[in-house]
């Protein structure tokens, strides 16, 4: 397996504050995957995204893109990296320069990366990208950002990323500022891009339900450290780390057979900077033990497709090379749902 992007013990600190603790992972180039990075605000997921995008350099450790260290890349190599690793940002309002029509954000990369040799070719590429994300070029091009809805703007941004035919898209909370009814559509489009265009996607989110629906693997971060990682089915279906369990049980499902639970949540938020060298979750953990305060737990692989950094599982083998990707599961090889393949537009035949 050749790695598309690799983080080797990458960490980021700002003075005394650790935004991201040593993390080692790699995403395969051969099998484009969809990986979720989940956690609450302040957990380090955005820092991780920015490190992967090359916007910030890690304080420790290395980031390798296709085998090359991003920090020491030459100009040309860096340009290629820039092109092949593209972001989709959270805020669909701020990503457009209000001075220009939305075309600007699509014509600029075509020009700067030399994607077309003539205006006509450029226009064709842009229209194709827009259609791919479900937008009608004639209704979208020529408009100013404020003339489009939040959902449309976000789709233009996805089209922009697609235009460049990147190898990796880092989507940082791409739908949290979009209406519920449009979220599903946009996420489905991301999944289609992954399948049809072989683009790996890292989906940064705080919403575990969408992560479950579209991703193969998930990493749950807590205050800069990995709490749990593995296949989405395993981690979300049967969370082992106390923090993951807390997260999953706090999801408000529109399913009345799964009530939220009436138990009092104490310590819903971390109460201050982490004290001591132990597990970061110790102060809030209902299963905390003596050893949790003194040293951080290792990554215990409880199953072949999951690890939890919690002393509760210290009997399980610890990850030797600390590469959390070893518990990631390979992407879905199943075709799309049979009902869709048959052309039936009703996704829930069993509901009636």
């Amino acid at each position, binding site marked *: 397996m050749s790695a598309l992007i690799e983080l080797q013990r990458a960490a980021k600190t700002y003075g005394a504050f650790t935004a991201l603790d040593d993390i080692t992972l790699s995403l395969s180039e051969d099998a484009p995957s969809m990986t979720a990075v989940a956690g609450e605000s302040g957990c380090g997921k955005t820092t991780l995204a920015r490190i992967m995008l090359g916007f910030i350099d890690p304080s420790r450790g290395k980031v390798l893109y296709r085998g090359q260290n991003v920090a020491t890349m030459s100009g040309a190599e860096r340009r290629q990296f820039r092109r092949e690793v593209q972001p989709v940002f959270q805020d669909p309002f701020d990503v*457009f320069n209000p*001075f220009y029509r939305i075309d600007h954000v699509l014509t600029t990369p075509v020009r700067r990366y030399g994607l077309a040799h003539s205006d006509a070719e450029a226009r064709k590429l842009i229209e194709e990208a827009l259609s791919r994300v479900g937008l009608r070029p004639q209704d979208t091009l020529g408009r100013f950002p404020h003339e489009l809805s939040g959902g449309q703007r976000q789709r233009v941004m996805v089209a922009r990323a697609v235009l460049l035919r990147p190898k990796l898209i880092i989507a940082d909370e791409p739908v949290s500022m979009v209406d519920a009814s449009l979220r599903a559509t946009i996420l489905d489009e991301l999944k289609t891009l992954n399948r049809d265009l072989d683009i790996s996607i890292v989906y940064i989110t705080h919403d575990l339900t969408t992560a479950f629906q579209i991703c193969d693997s998930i990493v749950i971060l807590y205050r800069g450290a990995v709490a749990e990682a593995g296949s989405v089915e395993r981690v979300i279906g049967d969370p082992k780390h106390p923090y993951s369990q807390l997260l999953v049980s706090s999801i408000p499902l529109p399913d009345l057979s799964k009530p939220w639970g009436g138990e009092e949540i104490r310590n819903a938020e971390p109460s201050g900077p982490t004290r001591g060298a132990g597990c970061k979750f110790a102060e809030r953990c209902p299963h905390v033990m003596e050893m949790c305060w003194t040293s951080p737990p290792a990554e215990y692989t409880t199953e072949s497709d999951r690890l939890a950094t919690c002393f509760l599982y210290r009997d399980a083998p610890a990850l030797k090379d600390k590469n959390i990707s070893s518990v990631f599961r390979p992407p879905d090889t199943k075709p799309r749902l049979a009902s869709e393949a048959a052309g039936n537009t009703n996704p829930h035949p069993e509901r009636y």
Partner: protein
Amino acid sequence: MSAFANLRRGLAERRISGTLILGLSILLLIVLISVIGPLFVDAHNATVGAVTPRRPPSAQFFLGTDSQGRDMLTLLIYGTPNTLKMGLIAGFIGVGLGLVFGLLAGNFGGIVDAVIRIIADALLTVPAIAILVIIAGNVDRMTTNIMALVVASLSWMFTTRTIRAQVLTIRERSYVEVARVNGEGALEILFREIMPNLLPFIVASFVGTVGSAILAVIGLEALGLGAIEETTLGNTIYWSQQSAAVLRGYWWWWGPPIVVIALIFLGLFLTSVGFDRFANPKLSRRA
């Protein structure tokens, strides 16, 4: 929502207020007088000894004459454009410099920013008039162009700070990051992404700079440090002071220049306020 998107919609949504229209009208009127006025008067009447001195306003001399035998109306018509010219030169240079320094400081940060900021801040605290007096006093043959340059040299600082602050803010916007991943280089980002969003601030700074430049120029002229040989509004006031026109009741000598100066400032001020409402719709929609 940004200022510029609003600029384009301002006309449609009638955010051009009465204030803005009035301000621009006043300025337009003054410019018109400067441009068309000379067609109606004989330039010769503004030279010393051309006409009967000390005459109050009459049918022959609409604004009277001064004690040196110059027709006031002619003086006004030739003096106003000179004063305006100085203000505009100082305005363009001042804002031009301010823009360049502001962009450099805001965009590059580090030592460049530190140097520019320290110099700008230091000069801001110095009373400009004092510096100008020293400079003006040491120039041999003062002309209106030199005056303009002298004033311009000290009118860039505020624009620099304004532009710098805006650049720092805009740099953090997501669309700048998007520009980066779209392959734009640092300079391209500066000129294609950041600059266009600075236009409202540039216009506002320009109006302000022209205003304060005219004020500075008139101040210097009233002290006798201006281009004495040229016809300007400030010089007219200077001569009127020299001839004790106030004591002697020659109100038509010092009055009209002051009225024109006041009108220029009124026009600039109203334009500035009106433009603010134009560029920032939140102000115009007071509940």
